């Protein structure tokens, strides 16, 4: 009994100790709960939210590109595809069979779907077919109740309604390359497109807009349970270009007959590029869906360089078109318009003989005559008297020798040589003979068609430093009012700084260009515009790409038609119209086309005429043009 009591006492004591231990351990549990659920509650609440909430980016629809009147040039198309979600149907095979009655699914496709269903999680949509026609989409939507698990997804693709007609201005979009990643998660979305060239690239950020996002609740394996909130983001802005699309199409069509060449139409008052064509062209739509390797190879391997916008990226010796610069530089250095030179068909400098394009010579010519006949001997003389540095200075004032700052990527600077340039780039002194060659726009001089158009515009507008652009400025829907359109109002001047020219000097050059096309003796008389009030002033140019040896000259210079394409002369032509109140300037360069007046001239004439016929200014009662325009 004593032992039993002892046993009981021990038991009681030990039970108490055990109870105390349990109490302490329970206390520890409570303390741990307090720590997790009160002290650290905020941290864990955040982690729980991060667990369940997924942010999904919603790509913004890309802004459209429009012409100056709002005609869409680049739009977004819906690309419909039909997808199947395996977990939403009890009988995948049955569903696919039912779908097969609306839309043929071939055996290969069927096998691929079955394979993908096996591989992917049950809630991942699997593409059955892409690029569905609208009637098929409609049929599937109507039959949706019989097609569990089947749904239609729409994807945006870029479409260019005019195909290649403005491809070089608009550019194209393509998948984001490694080098273009900036850390913006939008760029990493599958299928996202960015501008790769042209307006698409230049104004990519504005066209792109900003991404929206959707907060969705997901479970541990990533299935979306529901959408919590949604921000649709900002769609890309529509962009109005300065292009007049019908004119653009006309230009592109007019160029299409030539192997390789380009043309620019610019508003001499505003600097707006109304049309900019380059041939051959390409279909920018192909880039959105992705080119095959063969398509890409054939585009970049083509010797006519279809991807190049030759108005910006083609550099050519300006040939005789440069003579207007020489005439201005000569007058600025004190040589009057009455300065006469006798052309016997050549001139000599030291032992070297410099030929005129006209073997028989032009005889006695003053400055206007020199321009009208494009006499080489006259301009050899002017250049020699003026000096290369003064000529280069004048050329640069007109925008040659450096990029003119058009809002498109890929513009090349050209070359306007002078003594310092030759020293720096060729490490050689300037030879006097090179001045003569420069006087007729040959030698080192390189210009782009855009530069020539800007130069021509700056002559036509009375010597103002007009700057070209392809984004339409301001809110107007039509063409800007012509500064002189309203005869009763004050004459407006182009909103650009003056080039500081003497008006009389410019007047001589304009008169010379007028006689080029409107005087029967002019080099471009055959391609003149006859419609009264729409006459153009012009300057032809033919730039040699090969050296004519003395022996060839003695044997008779070979005709362009007898030469391989690569050795033929470039045909150039600049012009503006109407002569009385200039509005449009054009530059046309046909690569290896032959003579400027013969090949480039008709194209330039047609373009200038078309531009004036489309000119809404003819509707204005006081406009000089309006009376002459065909109703």
């Amino acid at each position, binding site marked *: 009994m004593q*032992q039993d009591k002892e046993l009981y006492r*021990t038991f009681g004591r030990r039970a108490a100790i055990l109870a105390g231990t*349990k109490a302490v351990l329970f206390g520890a*549990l*409570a303390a741990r709960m307090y720590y*997790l659920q009160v002290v650290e509650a905020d941290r864990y609440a955040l982690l729980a939210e991060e667990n369940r909430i997924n942010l999904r980016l919603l790509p913004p629809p890309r802004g459209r590109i429009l012409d100056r009147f709002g005609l869409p040039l680049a739009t977004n198309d819906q690309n419909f595809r039909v997808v199947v979600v395996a977990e939403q149907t009890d009988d995948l095979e049955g569903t696919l069979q039912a779908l097969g009655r609306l839309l043929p699914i071939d055996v290969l496709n069927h096998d691929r779907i079955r394979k993908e269903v096996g591989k992917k999680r049950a809630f991942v949509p699997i593409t059955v077919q892409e690029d569905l026609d609208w009637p098929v989409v409609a049929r599937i939507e109507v039959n949706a109740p019989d097609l569990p698990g089947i749904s239609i997804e729409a994807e945006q693709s870029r479409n260019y309604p005019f195909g290649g007609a403005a491809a070089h201005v608009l550019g194209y979009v393509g998948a984001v390359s490694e080098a273009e990643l900036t850390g913006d998660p939008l760029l990493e979305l599958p299928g996202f497109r960015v501008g790769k060239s042209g307006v698409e690239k230049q104004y990519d950020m504005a066209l792109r807009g900003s991404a929206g996002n959707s907060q969705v*609740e997901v479970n*541990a394996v990533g299935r979306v349970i529901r959408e919590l909130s949604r921000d649709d983001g900002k769609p890309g802005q529509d962009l109005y270009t300065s292009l007049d699309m019908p004119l653009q199409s006309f230009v592109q069509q007019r160029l299409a007959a030539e192997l390789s060449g380009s043309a620019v139409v610019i508003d001499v008052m505003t600097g707006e590029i109304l049309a900019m064509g380059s041939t051959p062209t390409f279909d920018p739509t192909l880039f959105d869906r992705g080119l095959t390797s063969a398509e890409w190879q054939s585009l970049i391997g083509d010797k006519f360089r279809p991807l190049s916008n030759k108005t910006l990226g083609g550099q050519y010796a300006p040939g005789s078109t440069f003579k207007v610069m020489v005439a201005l530089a000569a007058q600025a250095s004190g040589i009057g318009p009455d300065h006469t030179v006798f052309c016997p068909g050549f001139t000599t400098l030291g032992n070297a003989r410099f030929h005129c394009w006209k073997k028989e010579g032009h005889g006695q010519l003053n400055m206007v005559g020199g321009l009208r006949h494009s006499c080489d001997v006259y301009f050899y003389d002017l250049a020699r008297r003026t000096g290369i540095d003064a000529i280069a200075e004048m050329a640069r004032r007109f925008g040659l020798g450096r990029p003119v700052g058009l809002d498109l990527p890929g513009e090349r600077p050209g070359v306007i040589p002078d003594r310092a340039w030759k020293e720096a780039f060729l490490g050689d002194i300037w030879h006097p003979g090179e001045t003569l060659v420069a006087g007729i726009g040959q030698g080192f001089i390189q210009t782009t068609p855009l530069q020539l158009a800007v130069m021509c515009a700056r002559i036509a507008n009375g010597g103002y430093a007009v700057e070209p652009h392809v984004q339409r400025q301001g809110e107007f829907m039509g063409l800007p009012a012509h500064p002189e359109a309203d005869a009763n109002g004050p004459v407006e001047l182009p909103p650009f700084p003056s080039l500081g020219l003497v008006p009389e000097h410019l007047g001589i050059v304009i008169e010379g260009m007028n006689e080029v096309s409107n005087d029967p003796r002019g080099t471009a008389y055959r391609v003149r515009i006859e419609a009264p009030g729409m006459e153009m002033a012009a300057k032809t140019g033919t730039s040699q790409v090969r050296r004519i040896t003395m022996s060839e000259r003695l044997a008779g210079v070979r005709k362009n038609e007898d030469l391989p394409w690569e050795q033929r002369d470039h045909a150039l032509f600049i012009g503006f119209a109407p002569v009385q109140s200039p509005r449009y300037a054009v530059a046309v360069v046909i690569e290896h086309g032959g003579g400027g007046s013969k090949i480039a001239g008709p194209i330039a004439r047609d373009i200038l005429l078309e531009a004036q016929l489309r000119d809404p200014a003819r509707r204005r009662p006081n406009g000089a043009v309006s009376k002459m325009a065909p109703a």
Partner: protein
Amino acid sequence: MTNWLMLAGKPVGASGRQEDKSLGEKIRGISWGLVLLLTAIAGVGFAMLYSAASGHFEPWMSRQMMRFAIGLLLMLGVAILDLRFWLRYAYLFYLFAFALLVFVEVEGQIGMGAQRWIDLGAFQIQPSEIMKIALVLALARYFHRLDFDAIGKPLPLFVPIGLVLTPAGLVLLQPDLGTAGMLLLIGAAMFFLAGVKLWKFVVVGLLGLGAIPVGWEFLRDYQRQRVLTFLNPESDPLGSGYHILQSKIAFGSGGVFGKGFLMGTQSHLNFLPERQTDFIFTMLAEEFGMAGGLVLLGLYGLVILYGYAIAMRSRNQFGRLLALGITSSLFFYVFINTAMVMGLIPVVGVPLPLISYGGTAMLTLLMGFGFVLSVNIHRDTRIGQHSFDEG
């Protein structure tokens, strides 16, 4: 009290018929408060299983309720059987449980990387769960038979040590670290309550510590990983530390009052693993917050208090040991499970009693509390220490 020794020395069943109670008395003697508490805890479990199935009775809640009903009947049946019946068949019950353990070791089904179940077609039984109460029963009987002097000697302790270590070793072979640990803890608690000298615990404890490096060699890779993960769970959030990290996130984000019933994001979006079994307390803490967790711990605390009250009122050593042994095993379950889900101890597969989805654990626990109720009904029954021949 004078006839205490005499009674104890006599075959009680034969002479003491006055101590037998009628069925009505027994039913009245059932501690209905304890039954109500257990039912309340099981009720919390039903609610959580309903939530675990995202607001559906199927697949867990309905079956758990059925099991609880069966378990309740089993508990009451066990309770009204004479305590001396359980004393007599304690070893037999132990042997039965042991035989089942050996059977799973040889024939058991492979599940969760461990052989734990016997598939009986209609349901599966987990012998290691049965072993937990069988061990309490057997040790209670052994120490009941040992007088105070004998407990002071080392030699008589070898038999009960064998009773603990043999099944623990078998369970470890399955391998089931959690249950093996549970058996050792239950054994230690029984030895402690029986009055084994403390220095002996110290010696065994030191031996055990010395055995850790040896034991480490015997651990399976996934068991080692669990221990290592416990030491730094956030080092590898997508690997082995994922479960415990997600559990802590669920706890912490629940805050003081929780996210509301059926509103636990961690649980319902499947971030929480095993939410219907081992991690069910986490779901409760997420949906009802610290308040809910403390209420449940409070309910368990009350059950444990009941166990103590019953043990202290029992007038026989067998009853005391049995009642506190069962109560302590409930405590170990609760503590290990909740401490595990809160990241206090390594992840071990121990269910939360009466709440986690699982048949055998619920049935054996209720059977164990049947013993406790029986101890209460027969608290005045005097069972002699040395009577090997009573009815």
